[in-house]
């Protein structure tokens, strides 16, 4: 019974604040306008009693679990004011406290909105095939692995699964950030939280609930926004002792000075509001902004490290470059080209070399011939016989070995292509050079600009590490304007390099690479960023997850963490500054009292929340 009353009072806090406000207004009007002190007295007493009720209930509940909360301080302060018959102060303080709490709640909800938008994208229901073969709508929690589900146009895919029958186009933006619909058919994988733009699918559930990719992203973001940095844990510990300490100090002041007014003023001034809320607010707003822009930051520790970054290391293939080499230039020498290209394609078709793939793609459709006497020369290329002609396909060294004459014209072409960072493929028919191709892995579009933005944001060293030969690496490095580039590196060499930078040179290092080969380096670096879309590996291994592996989100991620770290420092500064200001005012000025103290206190809480909210609008 008593607890029902308590709950009722707590659930009507906002209405109580409103009534208090009206009563206080009535009281002051009666006092100033009509000189009616009886009405003033009753209005203020009623406002105080009504207003303190929810605060006192919360205080009592906290004390039951041995927590001295802010409510305890305020309740005692209001009680003290009541005792010395200062009803004006008691009424105003309770009103400000309740009204402040209401504003806090509203603004906090706004800062949390970005992440809420994300979690609300989670599927809630599914059409599940029942034992009688009919599909029925059920809560998504009731879907188990192996269940067969029906998804219609416009529906959310409820689980991670495989298409059994049907076709459709799915918008996978919630997982990959890519807004172009992806076609799905029998055997395709589909992901929870994505939307079927058109078509009808029957799918079998492979992973459900929190195990789905989307579920893991949500969990990651939720844990991230509540993860605590070392500084925050310190503030928490501090707050735990700080509030009881304020109580003790107020008691001592009262015992010594016998001045209740002063003692209760100290109680109100000592409330640790802005300090405990300032950092979490910056954190949640920063992470929320990231979530909206396809950048998932795994917690506040990550924000701290990332914002102080001075070195970024990139893997080359697949990170800075597209990862599928293609022919950039082809030069023909002499006559009979169609036949020569046919021979070249026939030989290359039998090779699995990545360069051979690029060559085949370039040649396209052509007549193919049977190939005999194929011989693979390591570090050189292939020789074979086609329709009685001797064919050599490979690098310059192979041509020399085969005694192929390289004309002056060809020699200068070779030099130029090499200088431009191409790998070379030459083809000779019966000792005569016919084709020269320069093959390069294209640099991802926009990478150069993004690297410049990173530099502007204060990253001093942009380093590329690659397994490719030094020539190719140097060419890419020159084109992109990197600070350092090292070729011929195995995954373990890369890891050793990262370790040396961190341990010997004391740098703050981020490593950007593919989640599989580079996982040792990703783990060693302060910040690991795996390219690889919303894949499991990328989510698991990354400290910062870039949706859709979009390199262009890196500058946003870096700028955002810097802004967030700055915002946290500002909030700590504001909070501590306000406490010092209030303490100084109470000892060195005449005008400080409980009501002004509460006003400044609530004001500072709103200021730090509003400051945090600025992060929601950050864009690079």
């Amino acid at each position: 019974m008593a607890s029902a009353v308590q709950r009722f009072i707590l659930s009507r806090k906002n209405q109580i604040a409103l009534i208090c406000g009206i009563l206080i207004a009535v009281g002051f009007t009666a006092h100033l306008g009509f000189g009616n002190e009886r009405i003033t007295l009753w209005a203020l007493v009623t406002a105080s009693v009504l207003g303190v009720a929810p605060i006192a209930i919360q205080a009592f509940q906290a004390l039951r679990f041995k927590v001295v909360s802010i409510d305890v301080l305020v309740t005692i302060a209001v009680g003290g004011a009541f005792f010395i018959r200062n009803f004006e102060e008691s009424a105003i303080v309770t009103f400000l406290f309740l009204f402040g709490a209401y504003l806090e709640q509203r603004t906090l909800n706004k800062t949390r909105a970005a992440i809420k938008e994300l979690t609300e994208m989670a599927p809630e229901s599914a059409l599940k095939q029942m034992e009688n073969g009919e599909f029925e709508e059920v809560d998504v929690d009731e879907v188990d692995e192996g269940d067969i589900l029906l998804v219609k146009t416009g529906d959310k895919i409820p689980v991670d699964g495989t298409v059994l029958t049907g076709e459709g186009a799915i918008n996978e933006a919630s997982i990959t950030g890519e807004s172009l619909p992806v076609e799905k058919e029998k055997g395709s994988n589909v992901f929870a939280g994505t939307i079927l733009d058109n078509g009808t699918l029957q799918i079998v559930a492979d992973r459900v609930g929190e195990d789905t990719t989307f579920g893991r992203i949500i969990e990651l973001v939720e844990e991230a926004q509540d993860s605590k940095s070392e500084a925050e844990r310190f503030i928490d510990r501090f707050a735990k002792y700080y509030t009881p300490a304020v109580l003790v100090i107020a008691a001592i002041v009262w015992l010594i000075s016998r001045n209740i007014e002063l003692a209760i003023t100290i109680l109100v001034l000592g409330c640790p509001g802005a300090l405990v809320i300032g950092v979490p607010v910056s954190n949640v707003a920063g992470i929320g902004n990231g979530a909206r822009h396809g950048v998932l930051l795994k917690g506040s520790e990550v924000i701290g490290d990332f914002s102080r970054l001075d070195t970024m290391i990139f893997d080359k293939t697949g990170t800075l470059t597209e990862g599928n080499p293609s022919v950039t230039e082809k030069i023909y020498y002499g006559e009979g080209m169609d036949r020569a290209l046919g021979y070249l394609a026939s030989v290359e078709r039998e090779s699995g070399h990545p360069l051979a793939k690029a060559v085949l793609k370039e040649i396209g459709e052509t007549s193919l011939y049977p190939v005999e006497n194929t011989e693979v020369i390591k570090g050189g290329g292939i020789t074979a016989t086609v329709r009685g002609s001797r064919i050599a396909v490979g690098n310059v060294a192979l041509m020399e070995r085969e005694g192929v004459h390289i004309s002056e014209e060809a020699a200068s072409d070779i030099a130029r292509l090499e200088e431009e960072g191409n790998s070379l493929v030459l083809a000779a028919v019966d000792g005569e050079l016919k084709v020269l191709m320069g093959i390069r892995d294209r640099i991802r579009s926009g990478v150069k600009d993004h690297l410049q933005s990173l530099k502007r944001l204060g990253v001093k060293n942009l380093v590329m590490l690659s397994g490719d030969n030094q020539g190719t690496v140097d060419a890419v490095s020159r084109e992109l304007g990197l600070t350092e580039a090292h070729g011929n590196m195995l995954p373990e060499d890369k890891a050793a390099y990262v370790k040396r930078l961190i341990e010997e040179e004391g740098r703050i290092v981020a490593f950007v690479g593919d989640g599989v080969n580079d996982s040792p380096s990703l783990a060693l670096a302060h910040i690991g960023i795996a390219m690889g879309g919303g894949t499991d590996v990328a989510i698991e291994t990354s400290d910062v997850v870039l949706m859709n592996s979009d390199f262009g989100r890196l500058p946003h991620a870096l700028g955002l963490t810097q802004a967030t770290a700055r915002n946290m420092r500002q909030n700590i500064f504001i909070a501590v500054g306000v406490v010092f200001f209030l303490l100084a005012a109470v000892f060195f000025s005449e005008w400080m009292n409980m009501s002004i103290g509460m006003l400044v206190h609530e004001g500072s809480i709103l200021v730090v929340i509003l400051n945090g909210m600025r992060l929601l609008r950050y864009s690079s």
Partner: protein
Amino acid sequence: MKTATIQLEALACPSCVQKIEGAIKSFDGVEKDTLKIMFNSSKVKFDYDDGKLALEDVEKAITGLGYEIKKSQSK
């Protein structure tokens, strides 16, 4: 051993977290090290021994403190 996930109404003050933490830790059967109270997402997570503890008792304690429970799950 089961894991409980309780979604609360939006928490507004960090001292709410302390209160709820104190309340849940006072129950026998709660694995205290696994208790996580997430302020921003207003979620409570903990492992507990379902032989020693009925989840409803914890739920009652939380509602008793004045926090509405939106969704409660255990598995």
